[in-house]
């Protein structure tokens, strides 16, 4: 099964760039990604630009409507994702808990729907 791990955290939470903690934090991400690769679990994964760069799009009577900002204005915003291949939810949870941001943010784990 495939699961997407959506990484949420507050803008001011976690190590900020330029602080001594930031290096090890990025290092931890690299190690985690390597682990996924080694286990053959990595399908895809990316970090996103901050939520302030988001544009929310909808279509009203055929016309494109855009709003500046993310879909939901919550304290915790989507900052990145991993798409992983696992045997079960237990395994997916295990990986999700290893994502460095899980320390100060939250990871939403969702199974990917398959059409067959």
């Amino acid at each position, binding site marked *: *099964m495939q*699961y997407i791990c959506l990484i949420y955290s507050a803008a001011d939470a976690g190590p900020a760039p330029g602080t001594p903690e930031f290096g090890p934090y990025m290092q931890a991400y690299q190690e985690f990604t390597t682990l996924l690769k080694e286990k053959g679990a990595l399908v895809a994964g990316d970090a996103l630009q901050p939520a302030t760069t988001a544009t929310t799009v909808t279509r009203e009577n055929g016309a494109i409507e855009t709003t500046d900002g993310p879909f939901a204005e919550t304290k915790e915003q989507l900052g990145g994702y991993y798409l992983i291949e696992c045997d*079960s*939810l*237990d395994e997916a949870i295990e990986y999700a808990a290893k994502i460095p941001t899980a320390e100060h943010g939250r990871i939403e784990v*969702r*199974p990917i729907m398959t059409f*067959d």
Partner: protein
Amino acid sequence: MLPPFKIEQAINQIVREEWGRILAALVASIGDLQLAEDVLQDALEQALTTWQKQGLPKSPSAWLITTARRRAIDKFRRDSRFAKLQPELTYLVELESQADNTDEEMIIPDKRLELIFTCCHPALEEKSRIALTLRTLGGLSTEEIAKAFLDKPKTMAQRLSRAKNKISLAGIPFKLPDDAHLQQRLSTVLSVIYFIFNEGYTASSGNRIVREDLAEEAIRLARIVHSLMPVQTEVAGLLALMLLHDSRRQTRMDHSGNMIPLAEQNRSKWSEAKIVEGTRLLKTTLAKQQVGPYQIQAAISAIHAESSDWESTDWRQISAFYELLYSLQPSAVVRVNQSIAVSYAHSIEEALTLLASVENEDAMLGYQPLYAARADLYQRLGKREEAIADLQQAIELSENSAQAEFLQTKLELLQS
């Protein structure tokens, strides 16, 4: 031919005793909880007519499993939605070809542990874990579970179906957790069982008869888990705790439903059988020296069970057990319970100091037992005003009428 009511009785008894085992075995071979439940339900309906004509089969459980599996094969073949379950289909057909005679004795693999760990998966909402456990392992109907939780049957049915849907779609596995997670997952299972027991035991709301069944059901579930995991001392601890608590069931309320506190219960009416079983189990468990919160609480309950009256209770030992419990589980709730023991073992002032040390914690906000305990301490100290104020708070915070009425009587006595 057997009279219809006999067949129904037999089926009801099988559902009562064997539902969980049969369903678990079916889930193991079919791989889908909802489908397993549906085909088992179909098999039960078929049993009603077939057994009436042909009499009871030698092994009703084996008959039900084989019939249910055949139904599953039919459904697999007819319904493209089950296409993803192809491996299961192959496996089922194989099983089917082995069992050519439904009357044969069949060894039913015991998969109830896998089932309970699945139903109590932490990715499910707590209330759903409880409902699902009652439905799948207890064989309680959706209506019965709804009644126990004062929910509408429809709401409960939706909750159950949502939970089963999540298990299937999110890939919650039908297997035991690995060693690294076993203790944490087991503690979730145990808290589900203990919750079911307390719902029955405290009869906080709802129909009392249904509620008492819940206490029995919790004990039955603990027996199952204990028999399958005999080395887990906390499972035994919880079973002992519930047996010891339950030994006092008949004396906890008078005929008109008024609460009778432990101090005033007629101890000669406590169930000797449950006390003996509970204490014996606790002793052999404690000897394994892997102590945990349930075992300690059972030990406290055992001291009460062995005391001939309230006054001669070994309060020092109870207080010491609470201290041990607090070291494992540092919660304000433990301190509130401990304060009563301290007030008898040491002094009321010490008990009040203990309460004062936790009363400002978040968990104590609106915590009824804190006010009830403190009212009792103030009353015994002769501090009437303080006792009245706390009692009024406690009454306001009471979750059930029996408790509120009990405290109300106390309040009226104080005020007169």
